[in-house]
């Protein structure tokens, strides 16, 4: 049996690629099968202000969000073209008053639905209504294992306590729970306790995700970047817990690529197995793609079908496959292993999304960036720039 994470991330230690197994049965290299799962970012509104938020720095305003009817049409279209799972995300998806209605519609058209939430706006009644509407799985983000660190990172008082409560309701309602923990220098010391917290919450799965540095996280890199020693310790802790908790808690581990030798296969390769839809309806190859200037992204509000946008639009084809690659990617034996790494990171760090991702040792910029990360990790710059619609607010106090 093969397996793939529906959001394009490869699971730790599993060499199988379920999607490849499915997709290899059909079509040529020129056409790409419809993704198994799609991320629906319902809104960029969020009560939390995490300094590593994966939303773009230029957030979509409430007024530009797709309407309930538009989202329903999108969900129907996705199911029709062969998408199997939908991830309701944001921003904070529960900030949308129509979430129960959208989950119900996803169920009606046969989509398996996941909720990716900060959980602070949930009540037990709301969660029960979502379960009744057919919600299949809840993923709750945690910023630490106790309120002092967690509420500071979230930029919201009492957030941690509310999350613990919502996690308990999730299990009481017999829905599977994933704990998502984004890790960085300000909370890595809590990892063993976070793992125990996930076990105590009766979670099925824990995502230990090191921060990826674009958008808001890049602005906060100096405060977030872990040291190389911390990363090595993290990997050891995760591997130990994976072995110890087999059959009790599944742990997925997203490594930080600044300290890697080879870049990550970002999104499973640009335009190969993943797209997301932004609050305003843009169809994007990844949730950070709008940070790349000079690319035009088509909208579900255009005259094009979603399948057409996926197969034919300029933005999806620009970095799809291997023909766009410069050296050293072009002749690299790993070009179809990592597809050149991450386009957003290449753009953020080199100014050109068509360059080799500097996370790769073969990039001429790798050495300098690795050194920069080490310097920042050793610095005592711990002040956050919180994420918000105003372009960010500097942390005050201590």
């Amino acid at each position: 049996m093969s397996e793939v994470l529906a959001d394009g991330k490869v699971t730790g230690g599993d060499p199988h690629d379920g999607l490849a197994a499915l997709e290899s049965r059909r079509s040529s290299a020129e056409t790409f099968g419809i993704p198994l799962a799609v991320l629906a970012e319902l809104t960029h509104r969020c009560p939390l202000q995490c300094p590593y938020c994966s939303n773009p720095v230029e957030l979509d305003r409430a007024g530009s969000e797709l309407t309930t009817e538009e989202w329903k049409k999108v969900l129907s279209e996705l199911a029709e073209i062969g998408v199997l799972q939908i991830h309701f995300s944001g921003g904070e998806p529960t900030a949308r008053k129509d979430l129960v209605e959208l989950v119900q519609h996803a169920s009606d058209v046969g989509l398996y639905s996941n909720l990716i939430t900060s959980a602070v706006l949930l009540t037990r009644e709301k969660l029960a209504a979502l379960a009744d509407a057919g919600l299949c799985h809840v993923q709750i983000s945690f910023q630490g294992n106790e309120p002092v660190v967690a509420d500071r990172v979230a930029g919201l008082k009492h957030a941690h306590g509310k999350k613990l409560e919502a996690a308990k309701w999730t299990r009481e309602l017999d829905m599977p729970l994933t704990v998502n923990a984004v890790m960085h220098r300000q909370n890595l010391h809590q990892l063993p306790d976070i793992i125990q917290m996930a076990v105590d919450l009766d979670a099925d799965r824990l995502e230990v995700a090191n921060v990826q540095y674009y958008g808001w996280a890049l602005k906060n890199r100096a405060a977030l970047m872990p040291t190389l020693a911390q990363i090595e310790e993290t990997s050891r802790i995760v591997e130990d817990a994976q072995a110890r908790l087999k059959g009790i808690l599944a742990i997925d581990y997203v490594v930080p690529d600044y300290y890697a030798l080879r870049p990550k296969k970002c999104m499973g390769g640009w335009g190969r197995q993943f797209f997301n839809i932004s609050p305003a309806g843009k169809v994007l190859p990844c949730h950070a793609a709008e940070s790349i200037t000079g690319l035009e992204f088509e909208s579900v509000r255009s005259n094009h079908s979603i399948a057409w946008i996926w197969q034919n639009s300029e933005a999806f084809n620009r970095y799809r496959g291997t023909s766009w690659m410069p050296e050293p990617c072009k002749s690299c034996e790993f070009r179809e292993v990592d597809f050149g790494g991450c386009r957003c990171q290449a753009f953020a760090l080199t100014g050109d999304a068509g360059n080799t991702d500097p996370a790769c040792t073969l990039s001429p910029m790798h050495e300098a960036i690795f050194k920069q990360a080490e310097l920042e990790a050793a610095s005592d710059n711990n002040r956050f720039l919180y994420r918000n619609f105003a372009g960010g607010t500097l942390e005050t106090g201590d």
Partner: protein
Amino acid sequence: MAGARHITVSETSRPVLPRHAKLKFDETRQVWVILAPERVLAPDEIAVEVLKLCDGIRNVAEVVDELAAKYAAPREAIATDVVAMLQDLADKGFLTEAREKTHE
């Protein structure tokens, strides 16, 4: 506790897919899939045959008997494969038991 949900598959187990793991025929790709939290599993033909029989009423021994008869294959070999496949699914949290649970 998650530990209480951990099951050890044996011939007396009565396995069934939990609410959050859905076995479904994918019309677009013409393959069977199991939809699970943020994952799509691609069970092979044998796994699909086994899972269709895992209704929470039959126990594993009965599933093995049916398959051994259907394929005129040695029962022992089939039992080994079926238990291993189901245990793998259980370890990933995508299989539960219809009746009393086998605690760790």
